[in-house]
């Protein structure tokens, strides 16, 4: 029964992966410019024999469906082409920049939970009073502000005026980067025993993580609020109160525990907004992640690079959803049918 459910989910993910690669291929073919003009010099572009050789090398002389199979085979082998700007395989670029994005996203996710859950609890306990409305406004403003602007304003205030936070970047420019082991700067500086680099990296992480965390906090706070409201009237809470437990323990131990299950699932789904937000946060904070890599690529019309990021984010999203679906199946047998 569970295996069948798992098989079905895997099949869906496989179909979606195929579709995602097809979309990336189609977008690449929307490019109106001559693709050879980007990689070849002016004189080489005009030489028919050189053109033909390059067309053959990339399969551009074949019919479109055949070109797609060519592309599909390459992608499945991990060959995403070579970036026009860095002149390196796109996959290597992505491997270099992904850890930065993961560090930022995990920190932002933590921020959204650490601030979002208490905010949601506070709102639920002040249901429909002014505290509830204020809490809603706080999360709404976070979600309604363009994140590249929130980031700038945060830099104005905390870096330029108050000088509490370091400027853009991932590390103090005066410090040498620790040798790359995992790619995660925080981890690598600990491995190298570089406390100075670790503290500097941590300080640089705070502001972008707060900005990105605020952006997705609304979802966490809103879900916590409605989930808590749902359980507040439950019999087991009345029992807990009847036993003489203090209100803090009733809410903290009994109500919140049951309310957190939907919060965790919704937070998993917030992953897509987290990725979208990370792209622009990285741009504002000069954060070396795949978002900034994608933006640089897009502005320089570096198609292999931007398609690489597009594919990677879609694949990550599909993988996260597959895991969430399977976890649902494990946690709730009713869903499997």
């Amino acid at each position, binding site marked *: 029964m569970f295996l069948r459910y798992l098989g079905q989910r895997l099949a869906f993910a496989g179909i979606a992966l195929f579709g995602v690669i097809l979309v990336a291929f189609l977008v690449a073919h929307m490019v109106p410019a001559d693709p050879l003009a980007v990689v070849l010099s002016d004189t080489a572009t005009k030489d028919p024999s050189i053109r033909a050789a390059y067309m053959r090398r990339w399969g551009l002389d074949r019919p479109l469906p055949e070109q797609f199979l060519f592309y599909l085979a390459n992608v499945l082998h991990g060959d995403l082409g070579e970036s026009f700007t860095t002149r390196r395989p796109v996959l290597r670029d992505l491997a270099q920049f992904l850890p930065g994005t993961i560090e930022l996203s995990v920190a932002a996710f933590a921020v959204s939970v650490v601030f979002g859950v208490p905010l949601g609890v506070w709102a639920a306990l002040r249901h429909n009073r002014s505290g509830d409305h204020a809490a809603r406004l706080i999360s709404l403003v976070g979600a309604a502000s363009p994140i590249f602007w929130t980031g*700038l304003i945060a830099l104005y205030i905390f870096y330029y005026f108050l000088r509490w936070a370091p400027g853009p970047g991932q590390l103090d420019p005066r410090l040498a980067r620790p040798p790359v082991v995992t790619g995660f700067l925080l981890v690598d500086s600990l491995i190298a025993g570089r406390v100075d680099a670790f503290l500097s990296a941590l300080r640089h992480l705070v502001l972008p993580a707060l900005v990105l965390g605020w952006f997705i906090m609304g979802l966490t706070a809103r879900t916590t609020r409605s989930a808590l409201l749902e359980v507040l009237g439950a019999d087991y809470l009345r029992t807990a109160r009847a036993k003489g437990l203090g209100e803090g323990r009733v809410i903290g131990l009994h109500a919140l525990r049951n309310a957190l299950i939907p919060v965790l699932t919704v937070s998993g789904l917030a992953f897509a907004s987290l990725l979208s937000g990370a792209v622009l946060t990285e*741009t504002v904070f000069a954060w070396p992640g795949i978002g900034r890599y994608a933006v640089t690529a897009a502005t320089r019309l570096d198609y292999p690079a931007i398609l690489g990021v597009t594919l990677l984010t879609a694949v990550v999203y599909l993988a996260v959803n597959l895991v969430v679906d399977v976890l649902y199946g494990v946690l709730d047998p009713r869903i499997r049918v």
Partner: protein
Amino acid sequence: MAGAARPVAISATRGPTAPARWARVRRSRALWAGAVIVGAWALLAAMGPLLVPYSPLDLDVMSRLEPPSARHLFGTDEAGRDNFSRVVYGARVTIPVAFGAVVVASTFGVGVGAVSGYVGGRVDEVLMRVVDVVLAFPSIVLAMAITAALGPGLPHAMLAIVLVGWAEYSRLMRGQILAAKANDYVLAARALGAPAWRVLLRHVLPNAFPPAVVKATLDIGNAVILIAALSFIGLGAVPPAPEWGAMIAAGQAKFEYWWVATFPGLAILSVVLGFNFLGDGLQDLLNPRLRDD
């Protein structure tokens, strides 16, 4: 405000009586706040040229990067252009594009979702797999890829938002149609021999529609942010067009000239909040059962 009154007319034929509904409209603070903000921006966009003291494109090199003053309410940018005039003109650029993109995306998406949910079977299976694929891309990333491929410019940004945005409507609408199809009155209409298109148009769609209207209202705000984001990156509006995202980009890294980026950002924030309030208010009005309290 037309935006607030229209859905009332749509749904006045069913549910609570018209007076009861009107009472709810009057009580809904979110609806009023949204209507006032969106209405004010619509008015600003329409009357912009009459209100602003300068042309948004007039260069005045003698007064570059001036702080806010009585002469230049929001200061000036690096070419000496009046920031206030540019923020007001920005409404004429961004809001119509966002509105247009959402109208096209929602119409197409609702159509696909309605067919998918109503026809079912293989058609449904295929359409929903396509929707899954589109939803797998983070919207900003796919929109960036599309505008990068087509070249910068607002028309391409608008097309990108449509291509990125329609799929959510299909999924939403399909669910609504499936739920509406199960109702007794639909069964009755079919039993009476009404043709499929008539059942769909007369009985299923009207009841499945309100959530799509709410989503479209909220989405105009999202589209404003997406357009601004694309312009911020340099893939949307082409300089020196007074687009809010492009104006924020111009103020980036100019920390001592905070006014350049701050005011266009506040404009975006207020427009998006306006559409959010309006959408929340419509939600309360159209689906009172969905209210989370």
